[in-house]
């Protein structure tokens, strides 16, 4: 960590700023057929500050580090057997305009994918990615980041933090990496950013505070792991799960859900002999699906929705915290926003709290 440096950037110079980030692939929120999504910016004209700031992208940015489908290696079984990993073509990247909740999700991914042992596919992209966030001035209707240890302007997981002051941004470096990046921009564009005035710093802090106060959903999760431990056989779970249609959207849109499947895709070269070419792919999976745990014997340790929903809640608010000292949830609210039958995780947790035991 390093002493922060703070600048201001006029909003109408944003394209100049992004243009100065040469040598990086740039990913940012853009409207794709009316839906806000993280996308590769090949033409800066496609990027609009106002669109990027209009809310949190529908899909979290996890696919940028952990693609929904990726080839792990290719194989060739003919007379010899050959396994080959693709060349690493991934260049340095920047994710721009990410909210603090999504940035924190990468720290949760790190806990799983970047240790004991490191997952090389994830770790490689992670090391090559600089993360520039934008403080969230107006939380969404189902946001609850402050309840899970985050905040609308949390710097955790960020290299640089932008705060929108209307006609200009306050640009604050968080890590050495962020500092180096901003230095690089200023070197090629000396007039782009000015030292931030104390009054602007103050304004940014007030915006951060006011966003926190505007947080629409709040729940005190202190003691939640212990409370859940006492309720594992409670009737309550049956009531909760009867509503769920097990579509899995909560897991696909969750920035912290990382479960995956591994599958072989192969084309036989001969009908009779074991000769083929193919690849081993990794794809997102979901704990909401019965096949996720179905064993070859036919036995399934989590055959019913009640088991699977409970597993999801327990994983996020009990087991992951036991293993890594943080909730596997960043409070982005997507699972609530997009659940087709209004399963509401904050409501579930509130009910858990309210159960007298």
């Amino acid at each position, binding site marked *: 960590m390093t002493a922060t440096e703070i600048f201001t950037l006029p909003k109408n110079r944003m394209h100049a700023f992004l243009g100065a980030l040469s040598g990086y692939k740039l990913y940012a929120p853009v409207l794709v057929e009316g839906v806000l999504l993280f996308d590769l910016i090949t033409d800066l004209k496609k990027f609009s500050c106002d669109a990027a700031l209009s809310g949190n992208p529908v899909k979290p940015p996890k696919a940028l580090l952990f693609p929904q489908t990726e080839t792990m290696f290719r194989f060739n079984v003919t007379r010899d057997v050959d396994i080959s990993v693709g060349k690493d073509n991934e260049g340095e990247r920047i994710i721009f305009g990410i909210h603090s909740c999504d940035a924190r999700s990468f720290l949760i991914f790190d806990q799983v994918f970047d240790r004991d042992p490191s997952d090389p596919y994830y770790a490689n992209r992670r090391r090559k990615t600089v993360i520039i966030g934008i403080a969230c001035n107006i939380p969404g209707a189902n946001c609850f980041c402050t309840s899970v240890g985050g905040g609308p302007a949390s710097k955790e997981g960020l290299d640089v933090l932008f705060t929108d002051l209307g006609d200009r941004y306050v640009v604050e470096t968080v890590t050495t990496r962020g500092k180096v990046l901003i230095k690089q921009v200023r070197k090629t564009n000396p007039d782009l950013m000015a030292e931030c005035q104390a009054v602007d710093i103050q304004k940014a802090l007030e915006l951060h505070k006011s966003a926190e106060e505007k947080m629409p959903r709040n729940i005190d999760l202190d003691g939640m792991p212990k409370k859940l431990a006492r309720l594992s056989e409670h009737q309550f779970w049956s009531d909760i799960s009867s509503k769920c249609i097990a579509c899995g959207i909560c897991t696909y849109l969750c920035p912290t859900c990382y*479960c*995956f*499947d*591994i599958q072989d895709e192969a084309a036989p070269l001969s009908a009779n002999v*074991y000769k083929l070419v193919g690849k081993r792919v990794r794809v997102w*999976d979901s704990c909401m699906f019965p096949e996720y*745990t179905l064993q070859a014997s036919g036995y399934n*340790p989590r055959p019913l929705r009640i088991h699977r929903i409970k597993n999801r809640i327990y994983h996020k608010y009990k*087991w992951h915290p036991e293993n890594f000292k943080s909730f596997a949830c960043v409070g982005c609210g997507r699972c609530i926003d997009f659940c087709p039958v209004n399963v509401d995780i904050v409501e579930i947790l509130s009910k858990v709290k309210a159960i007298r035991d």
Partner: protein
Amino acid sequence: MINPYLPNLAVIQNIKEEILGQRSIKTFRVTFLDAAIQESFTYKPGQCVMVGILGEGESFVALSSSPTDNGYIEFTLMKLGKVTTALHRCNPGDIITVRGPYGNGFPAENWTEKNIICVGGGIGQAPLRSLIKYIIANRKRYAGRLDVFYGARSVADLCFKEELFELEKRKDVNVYLSIDVKDNAWDRLVGFVPDVLLRAKPSPDSAIAITCGPPIMIRFVVQNFLKLEFKEEQIYTTLEKKMKCGIGKCGRCNIGNLYVCKDGPVFSYDKIKNIPEAIE
């Protein structure tokens, strides 16, 4: 950076048919193609590997050989799903994939002074075979009693039959072989494994009990060990779950906050007794 998902190629040296029929069981003896990998591949009894066939996928399986077996590894598989069925179609000389070893294995290094009681059923004997072979190969260090209980439904369902008959001849091992139902061709014990255990009444003094087998058997064996006044932390078992990665990342094999592939598959009973999904 090391890629833990990249498997090593291995060649099948020998296939032993343990049990025939619909749910047949075979023991595969394999050698890594790369001699350096074969040389450096070390493991503990109770540890597992991901075996696979390119184009079909991978399967998590306990090693049934002992670390003291040099120059090869063995695993024993029932023909059940996609990958195990493909492996059962293989012949000696075929190339398969192996990565690992994975999991914790038995804490056998702490058991040198203990009386060790192994209770196996069906294919569950595979990891116990590794442990038993390991103890016998290190019999000077492992000076305590060694009791081996093993049972199956019928004579035709006994895994590692000849080896167990050989084991019976040893003076330093007490072997209790049983089948569930009386058979005229069988002159040994008859009855369910948990009952055979109860009748034999092994003492809990300075003992370690390990049971691997069908979940229903595990449940009753554990119950009976408790009846024989074994403490929960003296009783060990191995768990089985669907797995894909083998390294605690893909998510599916969890029981509570533990991952069977990484934190298991060996657990003492006190650690898992309150986890509903642990034992079927």
